[in-house]
Structures are given as C-alpha cells and as structure tokens.
C-alpha cells in the first residue's frame, strides 16, 4: 500500500485545493476592502455568528452548487462541459512538483516533501501552462457568443505569448543554480553569500566586514530583473489582473466565462485562485528560497536542537519550521499579487502584446546574456 503518495495527494487536494483556495477568496475580499477603506463582505453567518466574513467562501460554494446550470442554445455541449475541467485540472496537478519542505533523513528512511521529485520539474510547469490555455480557448469558442469568442481569442494570443517569455525569464535562474529540479533549487538557496566577495576574490581586500555582510543566496538577489519579469509573465499567463483582458469585465462583459453558471463557473473561478497559489509557490521556491529560513540553514537548525531532544525530534521540528516558512512566503506572494490586482488598472490589449514581445522578450534575452557573461567571469 503506497502510503506516501496517497498521503501527498490527499494533502494537496484537501488542504491546498479545498482548504486554502477558498481562504484566498476571503483574503481577496478583505484585502481589497482594507485597501479601499471599506469593510468588505461580512454578513454570511451561521446561527447569527459572523466570523469576520470567513463563512463567505462556504456560502459561495453552496450558492454555486445550487444554481441552475444553463447551457446556451447553439453551444457545443461536449466542449462547453469539458472546458472548465481542462482549465481546472492543470492548475491542480501543478502542485505535484512544489517542494513544501526539503529532504530529511530519519535513520534510513528519507522523507521528501514533494509530490513528484522529477528532474525537469520547472519544464513540467511550462507544459502544464501550455495545456491550461485550452480551457480558455474552448470556453470562448463553445459558448456560441460573440463576446465569449472575443475573450477566447484574446486569451489564446495572450497565453501563448507569455508562455515564451515565462520560459526565457527563468533561464537566468537556471544558469545560476544549474538545476531544474525545484528541490535542488531550494537546497541551493540554503546558504548565504558575501556581498563584497568579489573584492576579496579579485582585489585581495580582506576584513571582517567582507566576511560578515551576507545576503541569503536567494534567487531574487541573484536575478532581481528575472524575478520582476517572471512575476509579470506568470501573472499574465494566469490572466490575473492587470492582465485580465480575456475576462475584462467592463469591455466584453465577462469574456470567456460569460455563458457559464453554477459549478462550471465555480470551476473557472477556482482554477484562477489555485493559479494564484501556484504562482505564489513557484515564485517563493525559485526566487525567495522556498522552505529555507534565511541565515539559518538546515544543518544549523538540527545541530541547535538535537543536543536537547535527539536527532529525530530535531528533524521533525525542522520540518515544522521549514513548512511554516514556506507557507509564510506563499502568503506573502499572495498578498503581493492581491496588492497588484487592486492597485493597477487593466492593460489595453495592444499594450499587453507589446509588453510581451517588445519589452519582456528583449529584456529576458539580455538578462540571459548578462548572466552568462558574469557566470563566465566568476566561474572561469
């Protein structure tokens, strides 16, 4: 009985998809309310007790499940039914490669807190993103509606353009860490590097200040431009505002999910919010060090606690610390995305396209060149 994969799948489905995605709808409501100086939704109650509006996600689920499922008249019924699934399933299975913790040794068993530790993990995310584009395109086409078709066409062009840029922006990080496996990438960020180390290496300058002014070896400090570009590209890939042209509420009514009601719309809605978690988890793993605590590496944690309680308990405590750090970073990135959503106006469609092809693509290629040049200098 393979207990470990089943436990991981249950964790992903129950905790992440069913637990945290509705929580993020609540975060969106409350954060937008705080940013806009209002109270937000707080009236859903259970026997008269409202808990700051935390029951609204549950109320949403009940509402969406009990609504009538309307399929428009001339629509292609099979594709109309399949499109929410094609949009939602890639978002959920993208959790398979996100490392929630490192690799821990318990005597002779190894615990690896990843669903599937595949060697080309980052490429898997890009492949999943390519397939997820079909949900939007088919939803737009199969609804037999002009506005949906416009939304679907815009979505397809936007998503396939930003896939290219998304791949290129990560090449810089790939060159620095020399691995595509997300676990190894997080482990490589488990140290710290000296900011003024180049003075020591090339000019022979020495001093305590060179040795002790250190930054954690995170991707964002090695590739700041790559971080900004990757965040832009993956937010555009997920059709997240300010890139939500395909579902532009004020222009094409609701774009590709106009003719969807009830739980099918709920699936689209949920896939966008699961995409938010995926964006946050990916950015946290690649650029913010994942489950790594800054300045306190795994060996240090275990060495600190094991004299008191033994190595096994120390490793367990280390797992707890790492997992909570990862969740903290994920929630920080979710907060950043919500901030961007509620402060920036929507891009116009030609601005979205020119941002991709005229600005991000040359910048990412220049980033690759500069990174390669510096790596050639540093590593000989």
């Amino acid at each position, binding site marked *: 009985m393979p207990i470990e994969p089943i436990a991981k799948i249950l964790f992903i489905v129950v905790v992440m998809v069913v637990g945290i995605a509705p929580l993020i709808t609540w975060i969106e409501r409350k954060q937008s309310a705080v940013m806009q100086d209002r109270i937000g939704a707080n009236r859903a109650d259970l026997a008269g007790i409202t808990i700051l509006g935390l029951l609204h996600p549950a109320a949403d689920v009940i509402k969406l499940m009990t609504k009538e499922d309307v399929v428009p008249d001339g629509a292609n019924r099979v*594709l109309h039914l399949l499109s929410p699934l094609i949009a939602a399933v890639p978002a959920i299975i993208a959790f398979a490669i996100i490392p929630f913790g490192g690799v821990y040794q318990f005597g002779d068993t190894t615990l690896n807190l990843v669903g599937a530790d595949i*060697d*080309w993990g980052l*490429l898997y995310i890009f*492949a999943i993103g*390519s*397939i997820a584009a079909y949900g939007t395109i088919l939803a737009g086409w199969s609804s037999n509606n002009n506005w949906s078709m416009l939304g679907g*066409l815009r979505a397809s062009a936007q998503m*396939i353009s930003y896939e290219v840029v998304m791949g290129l922006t990560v090449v810089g990080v790939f060159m620095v860490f020399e691995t595509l496996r997300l676990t190894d990438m997080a482990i490589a960020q488990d140290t710290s590097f000296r900011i003024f180390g180049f003075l020591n290496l090339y000019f022979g300058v020495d001093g305590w200040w060179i040795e002790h002014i250190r930054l954690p070896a995170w991707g964002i400090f090695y590739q700041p431009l790559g971080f900004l570009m990757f965040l832009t590209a993956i937010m555009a890939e997920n059709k997240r505002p300010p890139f939500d042209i395909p579902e532009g509420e004020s222009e094409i009514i609701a774009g590709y999910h106009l003719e969807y009601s009830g739980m099918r719309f709920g699936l689209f809605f949920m896939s966008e919010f699961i995409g938010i978690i995926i964006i946050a988890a990916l950015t946290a793993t690649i650029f913010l060090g994942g489950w790594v605590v800054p300045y306190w590496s795994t060996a240090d944690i275990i060495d600190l606690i094991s004299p008191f309680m033994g190595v096994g308990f120390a490793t367990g405590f280390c797992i707890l610390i790492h997992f909570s750090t990862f969740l903290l970073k994920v929630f920080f990135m979710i907060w950043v995305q919500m901030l961007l959503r509620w402060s920036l106006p929507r891009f116009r469609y030609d601005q979205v396209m020119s941002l991709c092809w005229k600005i991000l693509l040359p910048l990412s290629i220049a980033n690759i060149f500069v990174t390669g040049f510096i790596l050639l200098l540093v590593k000989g």
Partner: protein
Amino acid sequence: MTVETILFYVFGTLAVVSALGMVLNIRNTVASAMNLVVTMVSLAAIYLLLEAYLVAVIQIMVYGGAIVVLFLFVVMLLNLSTDEFPPGKQRVVKLAVAIACVAILTQVVIALDRDPLLAAQPGAVPEGFGGYRQVGLSLYTDYVLLVEMASLLLLAAIVGALILAKRKID
C-alpha cells in the same frame, strides 16, 4: 506485465483512437483539433515511457501548446468550424485509397513481427539518458550547426508567415 507495459498499451490505444477521431470527424473541425491534442499528449506520455524526457516535455509545450493552438486560432478567426462540403465526385476512389493504405499497413505490421532483430526488449540505459543535460550538451557541442540552421529556418518561416498574412504589402 509491468505497469509500464500496460501504460504503453493504454496510451497507444488512446493515440490511435483519437487519431481516427481526428481524421474521420466530418462535422466539427474544433473537435478534430482537440483529438489531435489528445494524440500528441498520449504520444508525449509514450516518450516518457521510452525515457525521452526532454523530448516529451518539448512535445507538449511546442506541439500541444503552440501548434494546435495556432490551428484553433485560425479556425476560430475564420469561423471554419462547421463547414460541410457537398459529397465529392470521387468517393469510390477515396475509399479504395483508404483500403489500400490499410492493406499496406497490415503487411508492414506482419513483417515487423517476423524480424528477430526488432523483437528485442530494450536494455537498461545509464542515468541521465534523455534528460535535458545530455540533450543540451549534445545539441550545443556535436550538433551546433543543426541548431543554427534550425534558427535560420524559423526566421524564414516567421518572415514568410508574416508576408502571407498581411492584407497588403506596403
């Protein structure tokens, strides 16, 4: 009867069924394109079983994620989805061509079964076979000329597609 063997036959059957669905589907071009996507993704799964990992991912990203999206884009833009052409004049000839192709196919499959060299089971492969490191190293050391020629070919295709799609050349 390992899991890999069963998976190969499952994905092989899926590929053949969706390829047939793509070719024989008369009414709906978008359904044909979606069947093509299913074929390509099942072929990518078979590549994974054959330990060609980078090729499988590139197959999904390029074929399934860009080429068929391009097909769908053109179909949606030109609204070509439900064209039904009147029956052609040469139906019997087409049926004969199809039967001839299937006959040649059966000959090929029977000939494959008799060749002892091809009946070999695949042996073990070293670690990292088909991974991105080996393919990348090989591409940029042994086959770097191929990469350059491929880039020239893509440039020519981009220019050609742009000119063909413009309404008037000014």
